[in-house]
């Protein structure tokens, strides 16, 4: 099974990369951009059914893949 971990900075956390890209978009004439957040995207191939993989990845995302002080994450699965 293929799982994707999508990690984004928490709302309260300053995201200087996102801000810089937002400003660049505006400078390039792309108007109407109200927010840009830059995070991380991890693809993981893993054996097991959806339930097992989800339980395991949640555990490791909580303690390793994302830092709960500064980041949120969500898991997306593909069969």
């Amino acid at each position, binding site marked *: 099974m293929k799982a994707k971990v999508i990690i984004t900075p928490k709302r*309260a956390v*300053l995201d200087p*990369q996102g801000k*810089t890209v937002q400003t660049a978009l505006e400078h390039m004439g792309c108007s109407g951009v109200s927010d840009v957040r830059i995070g991380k995207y991890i693809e993981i191939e893993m054996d097991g059914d959806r339930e097992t993989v989800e339980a395991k990845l949640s555990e490791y995302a909580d303690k390793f*893949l994302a*830092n709960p*002080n500064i980041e949120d994450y969500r898991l997306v699965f593909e069969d």
Partner: protein
Amino acid sequence: MKFAVLQFPGSNCDQDCVHVLHSVFGYPTRLLWHKEYSVGDADAVIIPGGFSYGDYLRTGSIARFSPVMGAVKEFADNGGLVLGICNGFQILCEAGLLPGALIRNRSLQFRCEHVYLQVASHNSPFTGQIPEDKNLRIPIAHGEGNYFCDDETLQSLEDNDQVLFQYVDAEGDLTDHANPNGSRANIAGICNEKRNVGGMMPHPERASEAILGGDDGRLIFQSLITALKNQPTVA
């Protein structure tokens, strides 16, 4: 009195820390490889700066799971003194031994320059010997030194006197301009609630001899040494 300096793949300030503790202060100091399971007979542990594991994923996030960090956690839980410098501070935050996290500098630039630090609390093994009203001039060198914590954590750091160092300007004023990385409350260093684990982004080991352009960093190591001398012997 014996010191251990941790060494991860990618540490690059380890030898500087050993040099200061061994050659400048004259104490037995050994490097402790990340695969060790014990801190041995060390009385204090230094986690040095660098780019452990290439800063992959997040700074310090992989180093914190190395075997030696299990030993450091146990050492700290038993009251042992631990100082993390730069990447060492990042590792301690990732390990949960210090609150908060270090994120990308607000400017997105790697900042390598001397800064001025105000000592926010003298009540710690890391700052006890710094004279009152003395601001320190010490270099920083980091891309991810922007200290972040939520409002509640910041309040508890202030309430418990856990903020050790804050960035100030040459006149000693705590201004936004003096903040090199965007840290909350200009925070450059903190300690835990038990006050035996400290972390700081500036590099005292790079400012411990006059020939290097300043020796204000000595005061931090001297504080640590004095605290160890005064510490009741742990059997």
